[in-house]
């Protein structure tokens, strides 16, 4: 996994705090990860774990105030996005890094024709004539599976279904052929059958355009199926990272294990899905020690006192937990203890 060449995107020790009336909310608290060219990186975690804030802050899309980037670097091909001026960052957004969002119903402007919204994206980044931009937009709509693309260009978003709107969003994001596509819960608001279609489309387009993808989701299944590598986030931190096969067979962090256990399993006869006890912590009042300790069945006294450092798992001691085979992608590596498998926990589970 280790590559000597420079990473496409390199996030180092990112801290994003929200300064609110109720105190400082540490939404992202020391997150580091890299993204290789052409890689799919899945970020998984509950609502409020800092997945979206991490990505939005890199693009300068968080409202400031209250958001403030306290520290860190976000190197895109060696250039730190966090210190760029507004105009330079604007040129990165939608050109080098495109983003699609959870709510296709509200993410397109209801007052503007679809064609206008597509063409303006292209023309914000390239010196291209209106007619040529329109032709490219139609081709891209066609590519993402919009029937009668030429007619749809003159239609409005409310005339399309949720799945179709997400396809339009994807077309809009890919028009400029970005190096990175950030997909923030792209299927959460959609029906299950449409979800699968959209994920398949992202997978196809990723192969076709050779871009890297950051896929944010709270659903372990979605992330596992799509990703080359997974980051598990909890309370603004990366608590575990590794490849999907490794993480599914041998989750090292109790939170990861709980996420996997709470996935729907068609073979189980239980009426109810197992849920993670408790609620995510108040990020303005984090407990001492490990943030997950209050909800953790494995917690020991030390967990409530000191914050665990990051460790990598030794290959020999990994107990098999019997991950559902159906969720392991064919051809994914099955070697235990990949060098990249790191986690933050005091306990060996």
């Amino acid at each position, binding site marked *: 996994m280790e590559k000597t060449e420079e990473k496409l995107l390199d996030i180092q020790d990112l801290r994003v705090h929200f300064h609110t009336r109720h105190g400082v909310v540490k939404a992202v608290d020391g997150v580091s990860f890299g993204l290789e060219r052409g890689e799919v990186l899945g970020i998984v975690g509950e609502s409020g774990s800092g997945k979206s804030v991490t990505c939005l802050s890199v693009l300068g899309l968080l409202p400031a105030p209250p958001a403030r980037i306290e520290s860190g670097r976000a190197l895109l091909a060696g250039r730190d996005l966090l210190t760029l001026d507004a105009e330079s960052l604007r040129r990165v957004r939608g050109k080098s890094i495109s983003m699609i969002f959870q709510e296709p119903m509200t993410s397109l402007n209801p007052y503007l024709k679809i064609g206008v919204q597509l063409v303006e994206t292209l023309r*914000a980044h390239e010196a291209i004539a209106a007619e040529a931009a329109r032709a490219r937009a139609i081709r891209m709509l066609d590519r993402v599976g919009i029937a009668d693309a030429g007619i749809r260009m003159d239609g409005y978003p409310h005339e399309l279904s949720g799945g179709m709107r997400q396809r339009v*969003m994807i077309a809009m994001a890919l028009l400029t052929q970005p190096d990175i596509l950030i997909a923030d819960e792209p299927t959460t608001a959609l029906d299950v059958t449409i979800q699968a279609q959209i994920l398949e489309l992202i997978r196809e387009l990723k192969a076709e355009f050779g871009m890297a993808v950051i896929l944010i989701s709270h659903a372990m299944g979605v992330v596992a199926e799509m990703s080359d590598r997974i980051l598990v986030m909890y309370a603004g931190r990366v608590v575990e990272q590794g490849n999907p096969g490794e993480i599914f067979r041998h989750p090292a962090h109790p939170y990861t294990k709980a996420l996997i256990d709470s996935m729907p399993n068609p073979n189980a006869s239980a009426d109810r899905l197992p849920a993670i006890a408790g609620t995510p912590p108040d990020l303005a009042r984090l407990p001492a020690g490990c943030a997950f300790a209050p909800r953790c069945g494995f917690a020991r006294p030390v967990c409530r006192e000191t914050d665990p450092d990051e460790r990598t798992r030794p290959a020999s001691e990994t107990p098999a937990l019997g991950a559902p085979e159906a969720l392991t992608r064919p051809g994914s590596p099955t070697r235990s203890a990949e060098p990249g498998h790191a986690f933050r926990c005091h306990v060996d589970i």
Partner: protein
Amino acid sequence: MAAYALKRLVGAVPVLWIVATLTFFMIRLAPGGPFDQDKSLPPDILKNIEAKYHLDEPLGAQYLRYMGSLLVLDLGPSFKYANRTVNEIIAAAFPVSLELAFWAILVALTLGIGAGIIAALYPATWKDHGVMSLAMVGVCTPNFVLGPLLVLVFSLTTGWLPVAGWETAQDRILPALTLGAIYAAYIARLTRGGMMEVLRQDYIRTARAKGLPERVVILRHALRGGILPTVSFLGPAIAGIATGSLVIELIFDIPGLGRFFVQSALNRDYTMVMGTALFYAVFILAMNILVDIAYAWLDPRVRYD
């Protein structure tokens, strides 16, 4: 859209009939008549005049006669302005009121929308507080105070602008400011609210995420939704500006329709009161229909049928 407009126009007919009927009977309920004077006229002269204007007929017959003339858009002769019909007076005076209204609305929209956008873009800063405080003062200042104040500053003290009149272009500035100020203040508040609502929407985040320049994000993506509350307000606002110019017309000595409206009511000039009231009713209905059509044009999700 044409079918919708036609439907609304047809729907306006009963409204106008009600307005005409109510005005007809209400003005006659008011004590006194058009020919009451300090020194009462000799009875036979009064009788002649009343016969000329059909005031000697029973009320029901007068009502039918008036409704009949309305059908051919004849508002009748004025009782007070001898030898002039109500149609002629309105035709002469209303264009002046309309022009004044036009300039006032231009002032209201330009100042109001501009101030509202600035306040919404920098909420809770000195820009926001400054603009909104000014708007509050604007809302609270009656135009009969603001008008003379502006005259004092810009005409009497500095001598930059004329005190009154309606001949030159400079004559338009102070009346338009006076009449438009309060509406500018309302529109500023509405635009601020609308823009702040829209700026929180997901599609604004999308617009920024795809790297549009901030100017495009604000003017193309946010303003369209952000001015919808203002557009709804424009119907009543235009009506209010066009009909509420009486005070302004008096302060600045403008030969508009407003003064006829009020004087005719005091004079019991029956036909003139009814004519102006009906005319304003038509105008207000037309403005509301126009605003609804503009709304549908701005927001494609709104469809009428």
